[in-house]
């Protein structure tokens, strides 16, 4: 493989590495972690053993005759932080994936319909989307999450609603400009129907922009998820969740047990950064002319 040449290529490479590492670790990371993510009880050979709370990182202790290493230490309730981070990663990634899927599909569909149909339908949908877009995403998610309740699907829905307008606006704008392109005219003259033109001529041309927006939404969704769970709107405890752990552990963190706060925070940063760089790199390579904020 050749060395990356431009800034965009570097972003893409670094982003892919970080993203792949996060996903891989969330799937197979349990091999190195003791595994008591939700309680201080570790089951060793059928007997229940209590893990001491607030163990510093890298401490190895003897439990029921075996040596266990807590790589990132244990929290205020004696739960292994690494195990919690890994289990939390699966949840966060699932929420981000689901909400990105929902918001992109809904946004693309509405954008295509609105842009191609025009008229009254377009005006009403655009109005609703613009007002949703002007509201703070986190606030919309808070209001919805408070109504819908906790859990994977509810949380994903609450986050997804806030990001539908981004896709809608992008796709609608592109449909409007693509509609006037010669190749669409040509397809029309050749006798292609509206549906065929929308799906065959217009939709594929919106893919590059969509592709570079997807990782950004994904990163945004992770941050919003962390914010929601920090505010207590995530999942029911004791299921691991990064934002919730940060809120619950903050007194201990401020009292000097740094590993309780530092590691969940780093997990969020690294995961988000990975997807962000991926998006940035893709954007630079797929849409070279307009590099917008």
């Amino acid at each position, binding site marked *: 493989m050749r060395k990356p040449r431009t800034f965009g290529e570097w972003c893409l490479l670094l982003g892919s590495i970080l993203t792949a590492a996060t996903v891989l670790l969330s799937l197979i990371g349990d091999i190195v972690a003791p595994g008591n993510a939700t309680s201080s009880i570790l089951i060793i050979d059928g007997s229940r053993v209590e893990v001491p709370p607030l163990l510093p990182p890298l401490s190895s202790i003897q439990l029921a005759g075996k040596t266990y290493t807590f790589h990132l230490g244990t929290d205020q309730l004696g739960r292994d932080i690494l195990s919690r981070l890994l289990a939390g990663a699966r949840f966060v990634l699932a929420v981000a994936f689901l909400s990105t899927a929902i918001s992109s599909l809904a946004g693309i569909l509405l954008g295509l319909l609105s842009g191609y149909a025009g008229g009254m339908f377009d005006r009403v949908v655009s109005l609703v989307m613009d*007002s949703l877009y002007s509201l703070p995403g986190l606030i919309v998610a808070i209001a919805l999450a408070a*109504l819908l*309740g906790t859990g994977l699907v509810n949380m994903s829905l609450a986050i997804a609603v806030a990001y539908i307008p981004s896709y809608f606006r992008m796709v609608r704008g592109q449909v409007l400009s693509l509609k006037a392109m010669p190749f669409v005219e040509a397809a029309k003259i050749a006798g292609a129907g509206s549906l065929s033109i929308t799906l065959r001529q217009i939709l594929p041309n919106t893919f590059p922009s969509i592709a570079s927006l997807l990782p950004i939404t994904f990163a945004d969704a992770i941050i919003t998820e962390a914010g929601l769970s*920090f505010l207590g709107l995530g999942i029911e405890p004791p299921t691991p969740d990064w934002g919730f752990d*940060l809120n619950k552990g903050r007194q201990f963190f*401020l009292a000097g047990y740094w590993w309780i*706060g530092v590691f969940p925070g780093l997990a969020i940063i690294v995961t988000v950064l990975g997807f962000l760089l991926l998006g940035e790199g893709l954007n630079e390579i797929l849409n070279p002319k307009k590099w917008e904020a």
Partner: protein
Amino acid sequence: MGLKEYVISRLLLTPAMLLILLTFVFILLRVLPGDPITMLEGKNIPEDVLARRRAELGLDKPIYQQYFNYLYSLLVKLDLGQTALEKIPVSYLILTRLPATIELTISSTIIAGAIGIIVGLLSARYQYGKFPYFARVYSSIVYSIPVFYLGLMLQAYVAKPVGLPTTGRLSPINMVLADTLPVRTGFVFIDSILSGRPDILLDYLLHMSLPSLTLGIYLSGVFSRVTYLSVEDSMSQDYTQAARGRGLKEWTVVKNYGLRNALIPILTMAGLQVAALLGGAVLTETTFNWEGVGLLVYEGILKRDYAIVQGAVTIYAVLVTLVSLVVDILYAYVDPRVRY
């Protein structure tokens, strides 16, 4: 269209925008699945209690009637309902908390703007060096740090060694004193100056430094990105080349031709960031116990009091509309082309 006509037509448009946003908030909160009562009191409450509570809140009426009630009580009576337990008017709670949020948002916008402009200037000056890459990496990293995590880190690693306060707007004694000041607008900054109390002002500034820094850094990522991009754009225009050709110093070119022409996109972006700012404020206020609307939202969530959450969302919608009005007028003032 002159500036005056533009401002008038924009003002006339504002009620319509507000109505649309409020309608939207109503749809979001009432029409979508989910029930404020079960959210409040759990899913296992008896049928008759559920029916009574629904009737109390007017949730048993047809949806269009609920909609008109919502708009009527909000716009005519300025009523946002009551809290579930203490029966305090939500509008009163929000009104007493609003100054704190406005103080925080203004001070953090100033910090973010300052960082953004410095980064933008430096990357325009050293356009062909490594600095622009630094600016982009900075904005990506800042973007990926959750606000509350940044706040916690500042509390642990800045506030503690330096001795800065980490919770609230004032220390407890001044909290009481602030209520006895001759001038009371709710804005501690204004009250303490007008009442001639530098001690309270100092205490206040110490308390607000970290929350503002947290929210300011959070916003500065987007600010520096946009400043950098728009300065870069204006640096590649012909008039900049011409200015260079006339032999002006590079810094003069950057300041007077690069930055000045980049101010319009920066201003637009500042307006657009209000939404992000208010969202970030909820988390910052929660982290620092800053008694603004955001902390109220958090308390509402903890107490499972939906009236508070709904009231706050409504107020945020109003704020967003008002700020976009101000930004549009400023924008028209700066750039005559907007007025057509």
